């Protein structure tokens, strides 16, 4: 195997696939990057058997030549050294050559590295997914769906299913839902595709977060395909495969209160910044608690108290407050996470009492729902 390649697209591809590589793997060869040269281009593969990523560098794209002088073949290189080597090479082009003893020579400018490779035959085959039951989502929309929900997954292994994001198709809508049982984030988009082979799957949050780093903020389509216990995301040059979580995701829709007693309309940014300031002291007390109290004349009082440090109190003018008076305490972190995910200038917050979940939505649509459970102070 031999080829000469532009360093930049190579670096980008290497960075894509190392996201799947873990140094703690039970299959030793998976600690390496697989490099394959074909007549169409160069393919890199990384996998930790939960996530597998392939990144492809075509010979040329949009008239720019990336790879030259290809002699086909394949090899596996230690992922521990390869990325740093490529990053620090002196020249814009890199020549990579493998001899019959799997000795890999990397040349760039006047630098030359010689590394021991491993036989690519020993690298496990990735499951191939057939694209029959697939659907497309624009890349930027998929990124939004992930960003607005995946932060709410559980980081505890006590209920493994909650470490994933529930993706389901109901009545011409596609839903992404995540909860760690203290807050819940949900986003829906209109979805006409009824020929899907699935109704509900749970994708590991970690997989989605890695995917989010790899795919671009563009309108290019990502092709998504679900098969039994795997999900595949494919863009033009990236093939991303993740296992799905086993088990039933809890039915959350019935846990979301339908009527409310107090409704607050407020500027997202005004509230966010007040909570952020209150959280400076809240970080010191247990559970990051801030308190919110409705006052006459559309005033909201945000406060936090850490006996050993001090207290903070601030009034925020709401657009409108409807319904009963309210005193409620909640985690500032959950509130900040939710407000940041909401992507709207104005929010509507619906409360049903100091000990029941409250719901934050953009004023103008119902597509995003953030739900937070309050804390009860003893």
């Amino acid at each position, binding site marked *: 195997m031999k080829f000469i390649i532009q360093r930049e697209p190579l670096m980008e591809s290497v960075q894509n696939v190392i996201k799947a590589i873990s140094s703690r793997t039970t299959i030793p060869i998976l600690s390496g990057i697989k490099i394959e040269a074909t007549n169409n281009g160069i393919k890199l593969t990384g996998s930790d058997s939960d996530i597998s990523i392939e990144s492809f560098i075509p010979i040329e794209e949009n008239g720019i030549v990336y790879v030259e002088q290809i002699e086909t073949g394949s090899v596996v290189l230690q992922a521990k050294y390869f990325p740093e080597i490529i990053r620090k090479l002196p020249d814009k082009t890199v020549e990579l050559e493998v001899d019959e003893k799997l000795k890999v020579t990397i040349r760039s400018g006047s630098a030359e590295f010689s590394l021991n490779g491993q036989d690519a035959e020993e690298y496990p085959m990735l499951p191939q997914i057939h694209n029959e039951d697939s659907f497309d989502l624009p890349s930027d929309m998929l990124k939004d769906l992930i960003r607005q929900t995946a932060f709410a997954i559980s*980081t*505890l*292994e*006590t*209920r493994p299913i909650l470490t994933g994001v529930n993706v389901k198709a109901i009545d011409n809508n596609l839903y992404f839902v995540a*909860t760690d*049982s*203290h*807050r*819940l984030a949900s986003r829906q988009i209109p979805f006409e595709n009824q020929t899907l082979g699935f109704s509900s799957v749970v994708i590991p949050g970690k997989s989605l977060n890695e995917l989010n780093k790899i795919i671009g903020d563009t309108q290019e389509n990502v092709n998504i395909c679900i098969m039994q216990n795997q999900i595949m995301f494919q863009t033009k040059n990236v093939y991303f495969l993740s296992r799905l979580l086993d088990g039933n995701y*809890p039915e*959350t829709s019935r*846990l979301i209160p339908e009527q409310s007693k107090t409704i607050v309309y407020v500027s997202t940014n005004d509230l966010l910044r007040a909570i952020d300031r209150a959280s400076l002291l809240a970080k010191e*007390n*247990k*559970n990051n*608690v801030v308190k919110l109290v409705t006052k006459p004349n559309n005033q909201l009082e945000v406060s936090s108290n850490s006996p050993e440090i001090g207290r903070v109190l601030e009034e925020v003018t709401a657009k409108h407050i409807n319904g009963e008076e309210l005193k409620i*305490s909640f*985690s500032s972190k959950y509130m900040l996470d939710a407000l940041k995910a909401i992507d709207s200038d104005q929010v509507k917050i619906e409360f049903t*009492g*100091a*000990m*029941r*979940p409250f719901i934050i939505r953009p004023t103008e649509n119902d597509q995003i729902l953030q*739900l937070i*459970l*309050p*804390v*009860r*102070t*003893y």
Partner: protein
Amino acid sequence: MESWYPKKGRVIFHVDMNSFYASVEMAYNTKLKGKPVAIAGNPEERKGIIVTSSYEARKKGIRTTMPLWEARKLCPELIVLRPNFDKYRMASKAMFTILSDITPFVQPVSIDEGYMDITECENQGSPLEIADRIQTRILEELDLPCSIGIAPNKFLAKMASDMKKPMGITVLRKRNLSTKLWPLPIEEMYGVGKKTAAKLYEMNVYTIEDLVSADSYQLKRVLGINGERLQNRAKGIDPSPVDPEAVHEFKSIGSSETLPQDTTDELEIKKLFRQLARNVERRLKRKQSVGQSVQITIRYDNRKTITRSRKLPNYIENEDDIMGVSFDLFERNWNQQPIRLLGITVQDIEEKQDVAQQLNLFTYEKEAEREKLYQAIEHLTDKYGKNPFIKPKGIEQENQPRTSFQKDFLDDYKQ
């Protein structure tokens, strides 16, 4: 009489009960007096180890933590008793009551030892007279021996009480340090365990005197802030106060147990973890507390011991949560070798009333049902200034200084 008390500085006692559990047993059953007696957990099984023993047994070479079979080999006539913690707690409480007759500044350290600050007790006699009176009362009223150390601070008092056992009263003055304290081997210094001692040997520190003259910069580098503290103590400096409240601050609650046989059987391991989680939950509940970190201990068949811990985003208190985190930690860190002992400790403990309870999406309805009740309480609290319904928390909440239940781990031998 006043000349016994320093113009500046303090007079601190360390009261240390002599082979406490064995002595309590002897007080209950005087026939045991003068005989080699040992208290051991689980006398039948191989995991039975000596918890404590009488002086007669110690003369035969019996030591705390020695396996039972070894002790029996050394002393075939050894009388082995199962621990009876109710008895010990009762005796402990009576002992601390005697101490608190002298001064309210009593700090229980564990079930059988405590500090007293008698700086303000001039009107009750000289320190030696007070110590003698305490020792006599404990012996006459409870039939229990103790040793008392008298010194200008807690560390020296602790070292002093160790110098004469049983039934000793030892005064350790600063001017006597060079002859009484400094010649001692470093591992006999309170606060120096095996690991610290090993590090000190590396620095050629073998006696307390070596520690006094050791380079303080190097000490700090090797042992951190503790190095500085140890050196100060060796020099006779220990500003820590006698704090009667300290016993209420428990930082961790744990439970550990040796398996009947070393094992790699995951089912058996899981079963033990479940049992440990249940113990820890029970103790958390007893203390009305919640914790934010979980630490597990794994001891392998070759006695190599590792601990691994995780800090959680929320406070937990339930068996299932403790179990979930513990077992996950275990699965990530077990090297598949046979296991001898497992332990779970919940750390970063807070009393429930100091922590806001994060409600849970799947269970909030149960809590919310009580909302009306809480509102009524809040209303009355506003009206009367203080929650009129705070419920008493059971027997441990009494106004006398409590015996320490930091030595709670001894409960493991109960069952």
